[in-house]
């Protein structure tokens, strides 16, 4: 990871049944990760409002992750279908406004993918570190 002294603030929304459980498994397996991440638990990734993520970026978060169940695995049948469409769209809207879409990570982690949770978080943290501080509040 590039160490330019900048430690990004990263927020992740995890769904209770899959990605949160995957994060738990990463913990149980002692998979070490950068400490920048803070997790908020929701019952389904379908509950994550796009407006929350916009508020997070406005308030200075450097990166936001939305992690749900794989499509087809959703505990609530197809709650995560909406998640996928909403946050693919938000990525595009951020780009339109000049905010690097790479600051938003949309991914799917199952309850048995502790390793994947570690990979996704580590890669995203270094990517946001590369991008630097949140330009909205910086300038």
């Amino acid at each position, binding site marked *: 990871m590039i160490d330019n002294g900048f430690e990004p603030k990263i927020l992740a929304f995890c769904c209770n*049944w899959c990605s949160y459980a995957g994060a738990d498994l990463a913990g149980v*397996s002692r998979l070490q990760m950068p400490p920048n991440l803070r997790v908020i638990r929701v019952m389904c990734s379908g509950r994550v409002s796009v407006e929350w993520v916009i508020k997070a970026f406005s308030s200075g978060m450097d990166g936001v992750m939305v992690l749900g169940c794989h499509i087809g*695995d959703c505990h609530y049948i197809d709650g995560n279908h909406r998640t996928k469409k909403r946050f693919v769209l938000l990525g595009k809207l951020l780009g339109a406004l000049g905010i690097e879409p790479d600051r938003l990570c949309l991914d799917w982690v199952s*309850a048995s993918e502790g390793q*994947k949770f570690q990979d996704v978080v580590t890669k995203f943290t270094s990517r946001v570190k590369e991008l630097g501080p949140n330009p909205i509040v910086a300038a």
Partner: protein
Amino acid sequence: MDKKPVLVVGGGIAGIQASIDLGSMGYKVYLVEKTAAIGGRMAQLDKTFPTNDCSICILAPKMIECARHENVELVTYAELQEVEPDGSGGYKVKILRKPRYVDIDKCTGCEECIEKCPIKADNEFNQKLDKRKAIYIPFAQAVPRKAVIDADICRYITQQKCGLCKKVCQAEAIDFDQKEEILEIDAGAVVLATGFDLYDISAMREYGYGQIKDVITAMQFERLICASGPSHGHLERPSDGEIPKSLAFIQCVGSRDQINNPYCSSVCCMHATKEAILANEHYPHLKPHIFYTDMRAVGKRFQDYVTRAHDQYNVEYVRSRPSKIVEDEETGNPVIYYEDTVSQTVKKKEFEMVVLCQALIPSVSHQELAKVLGVSLDSCGFITVPDKLFNPVDTDKEGIFACGFCQSPQDIPDSVVQASGCAARVAEYLAEVS
């Protein structure tokens, strides 16, 4: 109406489902599990067919729901010792609780003891592909997530030496003086859900299991390809730890043959197809071959799954029953000799890894169980269901029912159906008896 408690034997998916249903109907349930945690065979699987759901993801919520159900009491690391009819349709049962040497009320599953324990043994959960300590938790998501000491190899219990685990345990949960206990209950009815074991195929010398390193069983494959397995999901060959460049599955190993087991184990065609798909998904260069006799994709959406395996995942189905596997002198790889029935020619083909779909046999605990409960077993060792056609879950003893693989080869959904079926039959029986 004070409902009599119900005894469920076997903590796999069928036992778990029966316990949840009975508990939710208001019955007190004692779920007796031979090993230290519930979850059964399903906990060892990586994915399940035909949806490729991650097995533990759909099993863990059920395990937690069962363990925390107000009407269900888990009795793990325990076996039935004595069962006597109580004269009013129920059974007086003595359950032998084997000593864990760990107080499960105090243990928090923090694994400090496991790190310090110096003694290692084959890890049965991972099909002996790696080691576990003398004090261990069966698997990462085990329910209850409590440690247990393997008395046979623990240096303190066998030679009063070491005791490191007790020293590091801040919860003071280690208790070397723990004795076996007897739990007595008067059960209104019994549900058997003791599941299956894996047929020992090392005796089948023609396939070289146990001699040729890279000939493994399907369950070993499941553990290798599983993210929480010994190799974290990397399909590492036992011989050199490399990823195989070619892969084959052989069906009906020990099944559908008059010497070993005459019956069809019903699930191997589908789990082989699943494993082949997973192999190709993880390593797109792989063109898995499946050597089969009849591709029995009989369940819901199974046939589409097989078609997708062939069309999208490069799985090649070869209709043939291989005669033998020989180790190639230079490469050490397994070479399969088989008659390709379509072209009527005898061929041999080298593979870097061969997976044997071994027969699945009724749980070895059935001999003991039959004696204790007085239920009879059929010629293959399954629990007898006298009128299979119209009473598919009733055994030949009143008030004793059986569901899942212990009474006939079947997959997870059918076992879950029979488990709920047993719950209904128990409710009927208890209503009739009272």
